[in-house]
């Protein structure tokens, strides 16, 4: 049996500082900046660069390290979920009530199965959440030049004003989707 400290939910004051340490670690290791969404761009550049200069660059030398990092995160997900047993998310009672009011019946698992499963892809809410949501994540991260790791953690920790604008944008969009779109969609 694995110790409970490993298999239970890690508290924010353990996980947050550990995540923060990746910024100096990557900087020290090779002058790299933490930023996962760059990998979406590197994958596009590798698979289908198309026209224009945005996707035409040497993705191997620029993003090779980051693609390996992303592959590692997938492995980490495999270990974290399958071995360390992250299966049940103890969200607050208020959130359970709000999601119940939206019509979600099954609040077990990592993600709601009623939305995030292959059969649910054919429902309006499944399609919008997975396919439209995914598109907006990829488009927005490329447009803003970074995602949660790149702008919020890397950028804000370096006091970048542009990252502050981006993070305010993240929250404006997220609040809009949560409080206006989801009630219409669900």
């Amino acid at each position, binding site marked *: 049996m694995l110790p409970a400290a490993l298999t239970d939910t*890690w508290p*924010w004051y353990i*996980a947050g500082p550990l*995540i923060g*340490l990746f*910024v*100096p670690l990557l900087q*020290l*290791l*090779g*002058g790299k900046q933490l930023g996962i969404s760059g990998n*979406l761009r590197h994958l596009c550049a590798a698979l289908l660069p*198309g026209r224009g200069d945005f996707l035409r660059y040497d993705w191997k030398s*620029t993003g*090779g*390290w980051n693609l390996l*990092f992303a592959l*590692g*995160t*997938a492995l980490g*997900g*495999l*270990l*974290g*979920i399958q071995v360390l047993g*992250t299966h049940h998310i103890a969200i607050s009672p208020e959130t359970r009530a709000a*999601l119940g009011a939206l019509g979600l019946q099954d609040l077990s698992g*990592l*993600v709601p199965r009623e939305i995030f499963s*292959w059969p649910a*892809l054919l429902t309006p809410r499944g399609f*919008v*959440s*997975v396919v439209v*949501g*995914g598109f*907006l*994540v990829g*488009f*927005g*991260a490329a*447009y*803003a*030049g970074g*995602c*949660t*790791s790149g702008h919020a953690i*890397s950028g804000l*920790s370096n006091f970048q004003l*542009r990252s502050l*604008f*981006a993070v*305010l*944008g*993240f929250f*404006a*969009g*997220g609040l*809009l989707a949560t409080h206006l*779109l989801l009630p219409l969609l669900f």
Partner: protein
Amino acid sequence: MTHRLFPVLYLLLGTLFGIILTKAEVISWFRIQEMFRFQAFHMYGIIGSAIAVAAVTRRLLPRRPALPTLCGENTPAADERTGRGARFWLGGAIFGLGWALTGACPGPLFILLGGGVTVMFAALLSALAGTWAYGNLRSRLPH
């Protein structure tokens, strides 16, 4: 430390990053909903303390990286397309819409897929399509 070990090192660091995000439940749609509804401190605590620790520790480091880089620069020069800054708030808001809908930013997409939530493959393909679309439309977008 030799150059040849660097790829393994990045793979290992990524694995640790994936485990931490998984165990902190940052990859869960439920936690993202809880955050955008302001119903728990969890996500704010994680993001806030990560920024604080990164801000302090990165200032303790020497200005230049102590070790030679493996892959050159971080971002291609074409990245620096910045006009009046519309790209940050507008792009950010588009990203935020997607973040709340999928419940996953790019890191968690890879993590959930690796962890066996296979439908996230469709989300990843869509995200790639989104990035590709931006790449081919960017000359017509305000920056």
